């Protein structure tokens, strides 16, 4: 039971930030596609903006790994 809870916590640690990131990236990506279509030179900036929310998932992943390795 305890293991299941830990696994669930780890899953949450990844999935919640993943959903949040997906939402943010969808909005940023859509705006970014519009901008790049008109001004290709902004491509680099858009990649950076698009990449910013991704950090949430990476941190979530690290937390999940820590949870599993420390407690499971």
């Amino acid at each position, binding site marked *: 039971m305890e293991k299941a809870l830990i696994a669930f916590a780890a899953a949450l640690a990844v999935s919640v930030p993943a959903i949040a990131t997906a939402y943010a990236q969808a*909005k*940023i990506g*859509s*705006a*970014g*596609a*519009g*901008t790049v*279509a*008109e*001004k290709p030179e*902004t491509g680099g900036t858009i990649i950076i903006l698009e990449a910013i929310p991704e950090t949430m998932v990476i941190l979530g992943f690290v937390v999940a790994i820590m949870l599993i390795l420390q407690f499971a």
Partner: protein
Amino acid sequence: MTLFLKSTTESPNYEYLNAVIRARGTKLLEQEVFFTLAGGTLEDLELFLLESVYGIRCREQLAIGGSSVLFRVENALAAGTADILLETASLARGEAGLFFDVLLSMADLENGRLLLRASRAGEARGKPPLWRMYCVAGTAFYDDLWKKCFNAADGAIRCHEEENPMASLLGEAYRTLYETGSLSVSERALYSGWLDYWREQLGPLKGTNVRLMEEYLGRLTDTWNLSTWFRSGTELEHGVRSFLRGGWGLSPLKLEGCATLECLFEGSGWEIPFLSGQREANSVVLRKFQGLFHLWQKRLYRKDLLGIHVSMGYAAQVQLEWANLSMIAAGLSLNIPSAEIVRHLLLPGE
């Protein structure tokens, strides 16, 4: 017209649309450019347009538009403006598409008014005027009306042949003109038909963007009502001023009861800077009031980056740019001094 009545069940794509518009917005001309162009020649203006966003239409005019520079420039500007607006509108999805159609169909309203006035005059027609080509019913339709329908009855018949809601509205206005013989009544029919149509389309939608569109329609109603308020008894049908309902700031009570502009605008929500000081002619006040309506739209450009505000502000600026460039072209062709041309421009910074 494929643009017309896009499905509003689709999700609006404001992020994409506004990003495209904001990127395109950087190509709008600064006021210094207008000053420079006003100080040059018509040929300079054509060369400038050749390398601007109007380039493709300018090239088309050079190729098949004949030898008059003014004709080429005016046509290139009208067609170029339509390209910009129609192409941008084609990117809008869901309710954004519908809202953009409202903005575009303002052109049908203006084209329709031109035709009604020409029908009333009943004159033999020369070359068609420069239509607002971003209209929903299509320029060919208005051209056809101009060339072949010399009176209200012909106009009404031609409109009813066209399968387009905007044509039907104009058809009804033509019928009103045919039945009453009154231009103001027929124009009112066109306006009220147009406003009712769009209010009906917007009815089922909800949210801040719809409220903004309703405000847009309300402010437009105010401009009509103000022009009616200015009319003297002789211009009216049975001596009665018939105001349109659904105004934004000018209530029917005030419109009926007020005798002065100060009274009319008090607490209306409109910021009227031109009321103080010397009283100007009605036509000048009306023109300035329409300018305020434009300015209100233009200011929305930076207001809500995830709403229809950006589109509305952009459309207003594109139209303003067209108006200014046309004014410069006309001024230069008549050898009007640069300072005088500049005085008549509606500059982006104002």
